[in-house]
């Protein structure tokens, strides 16, 4: 039996051939090595993300999320729900807080859920994968499956917004959270602790609707990583990852820059340190490949002889 079990909420971007499908691949590799079992919530639906506010009212948005909660309670009772996407996690936390605080909102939500044959009991907890790592597993335990070090690779920890605000990881400051740097160091990389863009917003969904304004943010985030000598940026958020990686070529084309900074997930760093190959670490999903990580992943680990 696995050491720890969770009800898993993958979110839309993680689906097969979705924009964050490589995130999921690396999370699976990482969790297997940590003996963590993730069971996807059966028939989960989209959380609505932060951007659906114009079209959907408050209750409607909470109902969408509560359906996932109710399904988790029904099929995976007693397990915390874990999300890998910052926006899914944040939306879930907001819904939970709101429904816990308002009995009317709760009653209305259940009235709507009844139409889908479901009932939300307000038992399930919503967690982010990073919380599972930091709080349930801990840095010392995270070291155990390591078979390689990241060899002092210089890594800028880009935390972004929604994993950090308004909830964040318990005990961390909003303006200078340290867990990502600690994680990098735990895996044997060099954390660029003075990277000042670590909590800057990449524009989020507005990268689609306000591309010029968002690309200014992205350019700052990437250029500062270069200034600090980073070999790659690491992030816990799929939207940050996609925005910061994908739009670099667009910025180059429009502004004549030569940006080509790899942007990876924390789970990819861990999958590599745990001995995963490029495919198992989702490195084949990079639009801007990280030469350094590819090299480390390709190294064969000597089999212990004793």
């Amino acid at each position, binding site marked *: 039996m696995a050491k720890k079990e969770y009800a898993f909420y993958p979110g839309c971007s993680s689906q097969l051939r979705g924009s964050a499908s490589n995130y999921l691949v690396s999370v699976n590799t990482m969790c297997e090595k940590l003996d963590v079992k993730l069971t996807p919530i059966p028939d*989960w*639906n989209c959380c*609505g993300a932060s951007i659906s506010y114009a079209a959907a009212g408050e209750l409607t948005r909470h109902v969408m999320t509560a359906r996932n909660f109710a399904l988790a309670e029904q099929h995976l009772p007693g397990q915390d729900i874990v999300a890998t996407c910052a926006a899914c996690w944040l939306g879930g936390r907001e819904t939970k807080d709101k429904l816990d605080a308002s009995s009317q909102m709760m009653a209305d939500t259940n009235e709507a859920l009844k139409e889908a044959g479901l009932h939300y009991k307000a038992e399930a907890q919503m967690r982010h994968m990073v919380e599972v790592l930091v709080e349930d597993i801990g840095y010392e335990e995270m070291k155990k499956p390591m078979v390689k070090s990241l060899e002092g690779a210089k890594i800028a920890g880009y935390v972004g917004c929604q994993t950090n605000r*308004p909830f964040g990881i318990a005990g961390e400051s909003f303006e200078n959270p340290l867990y990502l740097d600690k994680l990098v160091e735990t895996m044997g990389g060099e954390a660029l602790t003075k990277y000042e863009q670590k909590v800057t*917003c990449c524009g989020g969904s507005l990268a689609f609707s306000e591309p010029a304004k968002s690309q200014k943010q992205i350019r700052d985030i990437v250029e500062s990583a270069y200034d600090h000598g980073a070999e790659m940026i690491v992030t816990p958020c799929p939207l940050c990852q996609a925005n910061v990686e*994908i739009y670099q070529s667009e910025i180059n084309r429009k502004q004549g820059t030569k940006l080509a900074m790899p942007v990876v997930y924390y789970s990819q760093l861990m999958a590599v340190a745990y001995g995963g190959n490029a495919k198992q670490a989702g490195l084949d999903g990079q639009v801007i490949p990280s030469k350094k990580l590819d090299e480390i992943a390709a190294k064969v680990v000597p089999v212990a002889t004793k």
Partner: protein
Amino acid sequence: MGNMTELNEQALAKYRNSFLHEVEERVEEGDWVKMCMQCGVCAGSCTFGPHWEHSPQKIFMMIRAGKREEVLRSDSMWMCTSCYNCVVRCPRKLPITQIMHGLAQYAHRLGVAPKMQPTRDLSLIFWNNCIKTGRVNELRFTLSLYFKDGLMAGIRQALSMQSIALALLMAKRLNPLEFFKGHECKDKAGIHRMLKKAQEIESRRQGAHK
């Protein structure tokens, strides 16, 4: 759009003397607005700061001053990136992000939001995409966005983003077959019934404040 304008006029008639009261009753988290002490911290927090004609601080002031048209027709709330900088810094703990979203939605509901606002379009397209099958179809979502302003604009936009789409395709992070059949929930019918009910309850509750 007729009934939306009507909605606007009804609201206008009922709350003629107090936009603050209207916001308190009809905008998500609107009852927090009066708690603002005008310290100005949020005004320096927005990601697209220089592009906000009115900062959140100023919007709260304008609401109290009864500047209804200027607030609801403003482009400002649509600049919110949901970065939550303001929320964690506000000394009074106002849920500023939600109020900005709430104001934007209210303006949209009344039919007075600025036309062709790209973030509003994005929000509508995203939501429609997501509720159709219960899950977002990233390819169709992207295409609808490109083509929202018509065929030619769409082709131009798609061409300018072509290298990005190709790179994602090669990295297996975009699926061309999603155009025909994407990921979807099994209980689509249940989801649709559930959402219909939610909207019904929501308009009932909003109606109570008409």
